[in-house]
C-alpha cells in the first residue's frame, strides 16, 4: 500500500513538472542607473526562474530585498522610498517564449518573450528579447532591457541626494538545470 501511494505521488509530481521543465534558483540580476554624482548599481543573485521548454512558459521571481548596493544608504532608500519592498516584496515576469527552441542542439538562439512584468505592484505587458544558449545540455538565458520608473509608478523625489535616472537598465542571467523524472521535486 505504501509503495502504491509513493508511486502515485511521484506520478502526480511528474505530471505537474514534466520532463521539459528547467529551473534556476540563482538568477543573477543587475540593475544600473547612471546618475549625476555617482552611478547606482545593485546585484541580486538568488532570483528563481522556471522555463517550460514544451509550452514556452517562462517565469521569473526576484526578491527585492535580495538586491545589494555598494552603499548601505542607497539600499535603504531603494527599499524604503523607491520600490517600497515591505508592500511589494517581489519583482516578477510571467510570460511565454515565442516559437520553439530545440534544446537538444547546441547553439545560441535569440528569443523573444511576452508577458506580465510586475514591479512595485504595477504590471506591464512587456516583450523582452534575450539570448538562449545551449551548450552541452546546459541552458543559459540572458537578457538586457530597460525599465521606466514612471511605468511602475516609482516616484523620483526631487530633493534626494542620490538621483536615479528615469530608466533603469536591467541585466538578467540564468543558468538552468533540467527537472529529472526520478528527482521531481526541487
Amino acid at each position, binding site marked *: *500500500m*505504501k509503495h502504491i501511494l509513493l508511486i502515485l505521488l511521484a506520478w502526480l509530481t511528474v505530471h505537474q513538472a514534466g520532463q521539459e521543465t528547467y529551473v534556476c534558483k540563482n538568477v543573477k540580476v543587475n540593475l544600473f542607473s547612471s546618475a549625476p554624482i555617482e552611478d547606482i548599481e545593485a546585484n541580486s543573485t538568488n532570483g528563481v526562474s522556471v522555463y517550460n521548454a514544451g509550452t514556452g512558459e517562462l*517565469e521569473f521571481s526576484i*526578491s527585492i530585498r535580495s538586491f545589494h548596493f555598494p552603499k*548601505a544608504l542607497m539600499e535603504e532608500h531603494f*527599499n*524604503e*522610498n523607491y520600490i517600497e519592498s515591505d508592500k511589494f516584496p*517581489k519583482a516578477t515576469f510571467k510570460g511565454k517564449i515565442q516559437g520553439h527552441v530545440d534544446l537538444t542542439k547546441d547553439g545560441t538562439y535569440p528569443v523573444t518573450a511576452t508577458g506580465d512584468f510586475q514591479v512595485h505592484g504595477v504590471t506591464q505587458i512587456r516583450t523582452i528579447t534575450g539570448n538562449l544558449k545551449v551548450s552541452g545540455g546546459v541552458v543559459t538565458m540572458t537578457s538586457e532591457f530597460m525599465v521606466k520608473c514612471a511605468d511602475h509608478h516609482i516616484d523620483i523625489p526631487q530633493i534626494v541626494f*542620490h538621483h536615479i535616472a528615469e530608466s533603469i537598465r536591467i541585466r538578467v542571467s540564468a543558468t538552468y538545470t533540467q527537472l529529472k523524472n526520478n528527482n521531481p521535486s526541487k
Partner: protein
Amino acid sequence: MKRIIIAITLLTLVTGLKAQQTDTTKKAGRKMSSTDSLLNAMSPEDKHQDVIGAFKATRLILSQTTTTVKRNNLNFLVIHRFGDIGTPTGGGHTLIGLDAVSDVYIGFEYGLSDNLNVDFGRNTIGGLIEFGLKYAVLHQKMDDSSPIAITLFGEYGVRPYGSFTSYAARNSYLGQAIISRKFTSALSLQVSPIYVYSNTAIPDLFGNDKGFFALSGAVRYKFTKHMSLVVDYEHPFSSYRMDHKFPDPLGVGIEVETGGHVFTLNITNSRAVSEINSLSNTQSDYARGQFRLGFTISRMFDFNHHEQWKTSN
C-alpha cells in the same frame, strides 16, 4: 482497510488543496499553471529578514535611536539649541532666541561594523566631551520572530574645564537599552531605560543625586516618504529633581531626510543636547516660555567604494 482509508483521505486532501488553489487564483483573475506553483515553491522566504528604517537617524531630538551607522560609514552631526523663545530674552530682541545659543554639539559616529559604532562629540554646556559605544543586539524581523529591535548604548563624558576636586570628579557615565518597534511603514516607537551617573552631580547642588534611572520614549510618524513628525520625551527618576520640580525634557520636531542628509527642526525645553546634561539638568519649563528652536544636521559619508564593490561581486 485502515490503510485504504488513509490513502483516500490523503487523496481528497490533495484534490481539496488544489481546488482551493484554483479558487484563489481565479479571484486574482489569472490561471495558475504548474509553472506558477513550481516558481512559488522555489521562491525563497523573505519573511525572516530584518525590518529596515525604523528610524532614519541615529538620534532623534533628545534620544539615541536603535539605528546604527553601517560599516565603514561616518556620520557627522551638528546639533544646535537656540535661546528661549517665550522669555524676555527671547522675542524680537533676539529673533525668537536665534541670536542666543544654548548648546551646540559637534560629533562623529563611525560604523566599525553594521552593528557596532564608536561615537565622539563635544558639547558647549560644561565643555562636555563624550565617547560612546553603540551596539545593535537584536534586529526586528519581518516575520515577528523578533518583534522588537534592541540597541545598547554606553558613554563616558568628561568636563575638562572648570574647577573640580580631582580628575575623576569630572567624569559622567550613561548606559541605556533602546527598544524599538516599527509598527507600520509610517509609525515607529521606542522606549529606553537609562542610567546616568556623574561623579560630581549635575547641577552640583547639596543633596542632588549623582546617579539615577530615567526613561525615555519617542515616536516617529512618517507623513510623506521623506518627512516625519518626531516626538521625544524623557523622565528622570531622581527624587531631588522631582522634589525641586525639574521639568521633564520634551521635544517635538520635523525630520526631513534627503538621502545622505537628515535634518531635524525641533522645539524643546531642554537647553542641552547631551543626554547626560538634559536628563540631569533640565530646569527650563514650557510654562515659563523657556522653550527653544533647535536643529540637527546629520550627514552620512560612506567609505565603501563602488569600484571595490564591483570587483567583490
